């Protein structure tokens, strides 16, 4: 509703139901390190373990196939789903081949193409997110990185099938949100989701990338912070020490959460689903209205 005169409070003030939490609290910077841990299970491994008979689809039909982003169909617990996720590699060789999981515009356009197929065939979308950023390259800019991201965000906000998002590692700004608009956003305990990497934030605000630790705290980028802000819906617990210590346990927890939410979303009529999704983002960060002294 446009000019709602009521004072509005929301987002941060929304109460989050209590969730069991591990006793040891890591600092934001320690969590950043875990989210980027080389041995941490990446989106391709989540797809490999959670999706049966994954069939990859290639190309955006406009420019090329982006190796930094995986998209296709498969079966999740007996249910056909569309799956998207950036391809962060396990070693340098894989990372070079897949551009460190940083998609170009054609990657986002491939993801959109597959999501539109999901819509056509009434299949839910499962998005696994682990990307440092959209690729900051001159060619990416030439091909419309911003437009590709904007288009995905807008289309996902109105896609007529359920979307479940799982942030498994790094949720790097717009490049992550371009795969991250959904009905339910889940986040692994030691994943991060941020508007800017802490190093970049420190460099811009304080002209000192060395103050990244401080920026990591200030940005409130951990799952626990984001749950409190109403930006994510649920935290997926990781084994003590991080997902890399026991990837199977982390994936089992993810499977349980995804299954539960997909089941609940399937029961909603599509118009209800879309209105709920719109409102989910609509209420984030509304402010307390007050008369401005500046006027």
């Amino acid at each position: 509703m446009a000019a709602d005169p009521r004072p509005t409070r929301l987002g941060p003030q929304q109460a989050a139901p209590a969730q069991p939490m591990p006793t040891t609290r890591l600092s934001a910077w320690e969590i950043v390190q875990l989210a980027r841990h080389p041995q941490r299970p990446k989106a391709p491994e989540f797809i490999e373990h959670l999706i049966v008979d994954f069939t990859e689809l290639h190309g955006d039909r406009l420019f090329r196939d982006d190796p930094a982003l995986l998209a296709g169909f498969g079966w999740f617990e007996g249910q056909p789903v569309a799956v998207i996720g950036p391809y962060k590699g396990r070693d340098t060789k894989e990372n070079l081949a897949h551009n460190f999981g940083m998609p170009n515009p054609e990657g986002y356009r491939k993801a959109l193409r597959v999501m539109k197929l999901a819509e056509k065939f009434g299949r839910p979308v499962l998005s696994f997110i682990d990307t440092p950023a959209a690729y900051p390259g001159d060619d990416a800019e030439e091909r419309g990185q911003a437009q590709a991201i904007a288009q995905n965000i807008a289309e996902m906000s109105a896609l007529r099938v359920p979307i479940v998002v799982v942030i498994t590692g790094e949720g790097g700004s717009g490049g992550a949100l371009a795969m991250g608009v959904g009905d339910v956003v889940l986040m692994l305990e030691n994943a991060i989701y941020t508007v800017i990497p802490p190093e970049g934030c420190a460099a811009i605000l304080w002209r000192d990338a060395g103050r990244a630790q401080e920026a990591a705290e200030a940005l409130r980028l951990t799952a626990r912070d984001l749950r409190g802000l109403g930006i994510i819906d649920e935290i997926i617990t990781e084994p003590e020490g991080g997902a890399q210590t026991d990837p199977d346990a982390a994936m089992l927890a993810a499977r349980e959460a995804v299954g539960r939410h997909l089941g609940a979303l399937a029961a909603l009529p599509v118009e209800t689903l879309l209105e709920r999704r719109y409102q989910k983002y609509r209420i984030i960060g509304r402010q307390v209205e007050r008369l401005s002294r500046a006027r």
Partner: protein
Amino acid sequence: MAPWLRKPNISASQRREMPAGLWAKCPRCKNLIYQKELERNLQVCPKCGYHHRLSAAVRIAITVDEGSFTEFDAGLTSVDPLGFSGYPEKLEEARRRTGRAEAAITGTGAVDGFRAVLVVLDFFFMGGSMGSVVGEKVTRAAESARQQRLPLITFSASGGARMQEGALSLMQLAKTSAAAARLHAEGLPFISVMSDPTTGGVTASFAFLGDVVVAEPGALIGFAGRRVIEQTIGRRLPEAFQTAEFCLEHGLIDMITPRDQLRAQLSRLLRFFGAPRAEVEATA
């Protein structure tokens, strides 16, 4: 002087934004320009055509028909939701310097007789960055356009998402884009005008979602920052990289329109899209 400029309805803040003194130095050609002449020329350098950045208030004054603008949500101000060090001070300073509560002015107005909902970002307020309030104002404006069945026109001037509100700022990309998508779904026109600079999260959301995307000459338009890209690719970028002209060449925007022709251009587009007239049109 164009007739609609004679009595700009927000003249006080327009003056505030002007540097003191009778003469202004053009940042591009370095010529000294008589302030009055610059003002008459819509802040476009008469020597080299450089489009000076405009405050939101000046943009509205030079865009809407005289006396037609009604502002929405003027009192909506940011809180410091994350307790981000230094943010309240920065907000306070921006409020003091601009005389505005936030980095966006929204409202309804008529553009050459066409009623529209307008969103204008103000680069002079924390770099026009989009935090929760800017996102909220853009979204409310789009929702108002939808309710009133009016076209939406956005004028962007922004460095992107506001870091000090963290992921809350990032979520404003989703919120504003979803509202823009609803306009499209209902067949309402949305024209996006990008002025210098329009970068980061604003480009990756509503600004690139217009039915028609118009840019001012020479405007910086891009997603990633020049320095980040240069570090990534290990090369220097050409001067013209991420300019409006670069974007036009690469098919990212529809047109580049000089400031003195912008109103006519908007009018032409609104007429084509069948936008409602503010008053009954004289029969030809």
